[in-house]
């Protein structure tokens, strides 16, 4: 089987079987790229994670682009990235089309009524887990409180907040 096809299949699997996003995907990526295909070593994988953390975008996409390039150049990175997003695209399309078809059913409305409060809890949980690793000292806590206040109550643009935080980081650390 050609390397390109293997890349595509591996990242399609990663996209299709990782629920919850972000760090929930890491064990599956590890299994595919280090153990099954031996495309990289564990040490290289940790370097890729560090880079993925420092660059924007979902970690699964970052790993796909990076590994695709390592295995098969620019074409490999395109194929791996498409592979990892294709399951999302298929599943979201099916969900959208079926809801569009049943839009007049009260069940659709009830389903959403039930999941909206859950979503708020999910995001609060994400804040807790990101906070555990990100708020490491008093300076960080002050940055977080100041930006929470500015974005929530003073309508500071969130993108501007990230840029300001980067500048504060250079000054304070």
């Amino acid at each position, binding site marked *: 089987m050609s390397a390109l096809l293997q890349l595509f299949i591996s990242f399609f699997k990663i996209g299709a079987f990782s629920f919850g996003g972000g760090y929930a995907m890491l064990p599956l990526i590890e299994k595919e790229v280090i153990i099954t295909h031996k495309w990289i070593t564990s040490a290289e994988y940790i370097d890729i994670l560090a880079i993925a953390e420092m660059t924007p975008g979902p970690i699964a996409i970052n790993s796909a682009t990076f590994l695709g390039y390592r295995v098969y150049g620019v074409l490999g990175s395109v194929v791996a990235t498409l592979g990892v997003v294709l399951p999302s695209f298929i599943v979201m399309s099916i969900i959208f089309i079926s809801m569009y078809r049943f839009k007049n059913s009260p069940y659709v409305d009830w389903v*959403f009524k039930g999941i909206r409060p859950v979503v*708020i809890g999910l995001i609060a949980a994400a804040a807790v887990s990101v906070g555990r690793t990100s708020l490491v000292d008093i300076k960080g806590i002050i940055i977080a409180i100041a930006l929470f206040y500015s974005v929530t109550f003073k309508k500071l643009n969130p993108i501007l907040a990230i840029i300001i935080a980067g500048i504060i980081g250079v000054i304070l650390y």
Partner: protein
Amino acid sequence: MELFYIRGGEGMLLDLFKTFFKIGAFTFGGGYAMLPIIQRELVERKKMISDMEFMNAIALAQASPGPVAVNTSIYVGYRICGLKGALSCLIGAILPSFLIILFIAMYFFQFRSNPIVEKIFMGIRPAVVALILSAVYTMWKKSRKTYIKLFASIVTMLMIVFLNVSPVIIVIAGALISVIYHRVLYEDMENEH
């Protein structure tokens, strides 16, 4: 139901692409950091989707496989401009990280050990927490608040933080409980007449 009406014209495609490109370029620290940016851009500034639709999108994105940020972009795209909208949003959302990683892979693998970059991220990491909390606060503020909803939100958070329950299971359970609850309510109402 107005909720599923595709309202945008083709003229919106470029706008969608640009908006999600911006969102993709500033999504650090996992998909949740993009939520306040989507909220500000699409719900508050451009009024392309309502707060409720935004929450629906996140719920579905969470319950489906793949990165939350990618799933949210696809769903929002469908909602606003159908299939073409979904593709515009998806490509916009993933293109910035694709280009940046490709550039790093080609020229700049030493990037991670740069001390200035490390300092920038010492500042950005707490900002991500602030942005996520801000999204939680705004969503709660705008929802029709009841004790039962507050209870559901808190139980969800505790189950994930302390018991490591998969978000997929909680989303499905929330949907099921709501359907059963409304179904029973509905039957009661019919019996009374």
